[in-house]
């Protein structure tokens, strides 16, 4: 579903992503761990074709994202670290708009269901987004991603700003989607969440994937130790 072949991005002398090879099958949740600047966000931007790779390819559904930028984007949903919405529109108007531009139309009741699914309190859907907290905006972003019914998810720190309860609910949603066969690439700092939600974990450092392991094979403490070992220069 999501594949990277020798994917490399250089900015001048600096290498942001270095020869990344990755394949995420339907139903898999791949968590990308790493320090700030390790290349996690750049990897996601490469998959979204927001930046051109220096070499190598990123494929979604077997299609090269640089050759079929529109078709590949139709197959993925993206949640950024900070979901941005239109302040003068209500929550549900935002959800409706992003969903429509993603190519779907639903009745209002379906949008309200989505708001409940992501844990937004009844009544907030008709409030202007300018009154929302960061966590609420993030939940709208999650609802937008679900409504897109995409085969793959690209998540860039999607739970930042969410309280532990909401974070937990998000993990449950992720589980349900992966059960439905969605391939997930998630950049995160949260080792605990990565171990709980992920099927595989990759540790990135200076643009390179230095370790990949299956979460079933490793305990939380071991993961943390391994992570810190890699971070230690």
């Amino acid at each position, binding site marked *: 579903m999501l594949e990277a072949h020798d994917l490399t991005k250089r900015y001048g002398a600096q290498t942001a992503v270095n020869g990344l090879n990755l394949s995420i099958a339907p139903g898999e949740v791949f968590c990308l761990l790493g320090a700030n600047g390790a290349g996690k966000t750049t990897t996601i931007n490469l998959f979204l074709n927001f*930046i051109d790779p220096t070499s190598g390819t990123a494929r979604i559904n077997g299609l090269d994202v640089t050759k079929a930028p529109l078709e590949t984007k139709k197959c993925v949903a993206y949640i950024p670290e900070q979901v941005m919405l*239109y302040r003068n529109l209500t929550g549900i*108007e935002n959800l409706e708009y992003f969903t*429509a531009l993603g190519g779907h139309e639903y009745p209002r009741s379906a949008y309200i269901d989505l708001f409940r699914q992501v844990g937004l309190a009844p009544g907030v859907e008709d409030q202007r987004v300018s009154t929302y907290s960061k966590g609420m905006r993030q939940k709208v972003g999650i609802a*937008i991603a679900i409504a*897109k019914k995409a085969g793959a998810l*690209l998540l860039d720190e999607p739970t930042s700003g969410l309280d532990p309860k909401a974070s937990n609910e998000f993990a449950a949603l992720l589980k349900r989607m992966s059960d439905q066969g969605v391939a997930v690439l998630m950049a995160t700092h949260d080792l605990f969440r990565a171990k709980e939600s992920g099927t595989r974990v990759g540790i990135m450092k200076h643009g390179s994937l230095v370790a990949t392991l299956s979460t079933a094979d490793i305990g939380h403490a071991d993961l943390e130790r391994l992570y810190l070992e890699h971070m230690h220069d």
Partner: protein
Amino acid sequence: MISRVARKELLEILRDGRFRVLSIAVLAVSLLSLAVGWKQYTDVAKQHQQAQAATRAQWLNQTKKNPHSAAHYGVYAFKPKSPLAIVDTGIDPYMGVAVWLEAHKQNEFKYRPAQDRTAVQRFGEMTAAETLQVLVPLFIVLMTFGTLAAERERGTLRQLLSLGVKSRDLALGKAAGIAIALGMVLVPAAVLGVMSLALTSDGGFLASSPTRAAWLVASYLAYFAIVAAICLGVSARARSSRLALVVLLTFWFANTVVASRVVADVASWLHPTPSAVEFQKAMDADLNDQQEMQRRLDRRKAELMRQYNANSIDAVPVAFSGVSLQEGEDHGNEVFDEHYGRLFDIYDRQNTIYQLGGFAAPMLAMRAISMGLSGTDFHQHRDFITAAEAYRRQIQRTMNADIMAHPVRGGAAYLAGRELWERVPEFQYDAPATGWVLRNTRWSFAILAAWLVVAIGWMMRPLPRAAI
């Protein structure tokens, strides 16, 4: 997709307090300038009608007198105002609207409102055309500079593009949303304008000007579309909405304020006009060419004597005083045609420069079209001058022919009466057809169309990667 973007854009604009304030301001100024134009038009149209009737009555009710005295008595000719002059007064305030037609002289136009004004008033004048050409583009700039730039700043653009939305659809949808919002302000103003036009002109507008009005509306729409497309194109590519605003305000200022002054300077530098004094001096010198006059009279004398087989001019059955007067007119007419012709050709060439200036600033093309369709541009002014001058010459010919036909002997005076005055028909002037106007402004139309195609084409180009 495009309509969905347009709907959301419109909703956002309508919920934005700035739009409400700006649109009320623009609507108020449009209506105010229309009201001022309407008042001016109705006043002037009524005055013209009364004055035209008065000048005719005065002409007909002259006492018995020598036809040449009547020729000196003269008449006024008034340039009829098209109802569309409410929208665009054009050069009328500077060139005048009435001319005194008398013997021996092709007079300059009188009644230039601009003459009686102070310099401050001259800049403070707000016609509907200025509102449309200057203020509405500013309104469009202020409404649209952030359309895409602000979405990029806020990060919503990334999210939209991550959905697989084409940037072209986004730009088109936004353009449509803005167009609808703009229409909500301008359509009421236009409807009120057309209604007041129809009401003021006793149905004359509906009979004569709809074609011109339709072209005018279409041209202004194209002009606004050009401005909006440039705004969206800049907004899509500027690094920040602040930068977009700076760039667009610079464009607005250059287009509406700087360009017309620069092009006026260029035009008068390339095709300088003589000063009024120089012009008059040169023309007077030719008019007072006594040798030429003597040659003409001698030739006519010889011709007449040959024609009537007479050996003295006194034996010819034609009053030579009339012949001599007509010779004076003919000589004067040649001089006028030469001097005024040369002057007007300079104006014409300057006018072409103004029109070509449209390549640099679309407002110049729009201005030429607007004045042309409103019947207040230089071409139509010249057309009227020519018609009025032809009428003056007709009066002179009629009077002089009557003098010629009534030779008197021994110091007796010939007096003519109402029967002769009536032989001069009332001055009739029909404004040129729309097709003639369109031909005169063809450059401006072509330039405006080119701007439209290029601006929209540029707006729809895919966003450069760096602009995401």
